[in-house]
């Protein structure tokens, strides 16, 4: 304390021995040294060498980057870590540096020092970066990429259409281009993480001839090992497991299809537009994949319907034993999402064929991923007047 008191006394009166010249010269030189040093330090922490000096950065993101176009390409320009992950303007850069101080914490407590820990956290970390990119309208991308400099005529028709409409809205790049520099997080759960957290990923072994329910929209395959997709199985659909092999199971799907075109869409029941599965053209054309039975005509639409059964393979995960948790999750989502703007109607207010139109008309106002959307729509249809009336 006395030290500071003395110090203050010395500082508070004119210098007796130091000359004005020597004081200002010292201050001037120190100013230069400080500012130079500060910027050098800032630059040093903004180099790739600094980023990958940490093992978890070197072993995962850096290795993944090397397989992408941002590492090597025809023009020989490459993006380094800070090009995308640190804003270029001074103020934001400082803010980012402060934010990054939490990474030091992570390094100290070894939050992601092993491959397993890194994978566990990948979704969380990626989500944080996506949020940052979204907030900045992908400014980090746009430091190099520019909508105005895009050569439309060399793009495919589809790319042109998509990019032009994105350019009009000056859309954020990562809206579509996710996972282009690093591996995407496990997208199975990333599709509807909250839903999966609620209902689980399903049992590890299955009992044959027992019913199971899909917890996500799932791919269907022709064989237990092949990669060729035969279509997709809609969420919350009841299937019967027939056999297990490796990490796939053979499931029996039944329902009704409209006798129009290839008739590759399978619905829940006669005359009810509730999706069960959508098969690929190839699957629909292959003999023995879809087995047709009795036919009936829907007097309302004049369409012929046919009862069908099919047996295909699907991944063993996200098949759960009960349907109720799915409906519980859907009910909560429906109630909370819709009541933001209005009193949501009763589930039984509309019938199963009216709900999709109603629901799709409103979906633009809420933020719901595809799986949750499909689930909520199915929940509404399943609990619509069509079925509730029958239950009475």
């Amino acid at each position: 304390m006395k030290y500071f008191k003395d110090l203050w006394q010395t500082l508070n009166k004119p210098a007796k021995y130091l000359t004005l010249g020597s004081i200002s010269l010292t201050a001037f030189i120190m100013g230069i040294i400080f500012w130079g040093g500060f910027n050098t330090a800032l630059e040093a922490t903004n180099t790739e060498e600094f980023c990958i000096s940490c093992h978890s950065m070197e072993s995962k993101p850096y290795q993944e980057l090397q397989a992408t176009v941002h590492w090597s390409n025809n023009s020989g320009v490459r993006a380094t870590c800070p090009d995308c992950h640190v804003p270029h303007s001074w103020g934001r850069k400082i803010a980012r540096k402060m934010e990054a101080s939490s990474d030091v914490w992570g390094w100290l407590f070894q939050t992601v020092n092993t491959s397993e820990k890194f994978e566990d956290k990948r979704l969380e970390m990626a989500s944080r970066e996506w949020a940052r990119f979204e907030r900045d309208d992908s400014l980090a991308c746009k430091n190099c990429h520019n909508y105005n400099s895009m050569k439309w005529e060399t793009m495919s028709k589809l790319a042109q259409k998509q990019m032009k409409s994105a350019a009009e809205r000056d859309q954020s790049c990562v809206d579509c281009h996710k996972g282009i520099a690093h591996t995407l997080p496990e997208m199975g759960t990333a599709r509807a993480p909250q839903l999966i957290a609620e209902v689980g990923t399903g049992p590890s072994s299955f009992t044959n001839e027992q019913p199971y329910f899909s917890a996500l929209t799932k791919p269907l395959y022709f064989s237990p090992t092949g990669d060729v997709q035969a279509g997709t199985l809609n969420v919350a659909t009841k299937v019967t497991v027939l056999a297990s092999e490796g990490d796939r199971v053979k499931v029996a799907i039944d329902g009704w299809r409209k006798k129009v075109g290839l008739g590759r869409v399978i619905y829940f029941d006669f005359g009810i537009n509730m999706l069960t599965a959508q098969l690929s053209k190839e699957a629909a054309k292959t003999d023995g994949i879809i087995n047709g039975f009795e036919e009936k005509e829907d007097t309302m639409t004049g369409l012929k319907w046919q009862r069908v059964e099919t047996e295909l393979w699907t991944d063993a995960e996200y098949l759960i034993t009960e349907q109720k948790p799915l409906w519980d999750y859907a009910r909560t989502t429906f109630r909370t999402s819709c009541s933001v703007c209005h009193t949501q109607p009763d589930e039984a207010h509309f019938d199963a064929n009216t709900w999709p139109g109603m629901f799709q008309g409103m979906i633009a106002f809420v933020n719901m991923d595809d799986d949750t959307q499909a689930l909520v729509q199915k929940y509404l249809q399943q609990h619509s007047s069509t079925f509730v009336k029958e239950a009475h």
Partner: protein
Amino acid sequence: MTTKQLHKTTESQSKLKEFKALGFIIVVLFPALCVAAIGGYGLIIWLIQAMGGIVPH
């Protein structure tokens, strides 16, 4: 100790004090304040952004 010697001691003592004080503020205090101020500025921008605000760039 003569008066002259005593005078000389206090003189060199306060000269040392002045040097120390100069060294302290210029080498330690001001750089530290400067870093703190810049850090604080960054923190404020970060907080604004974290609360959903848009910071012009």
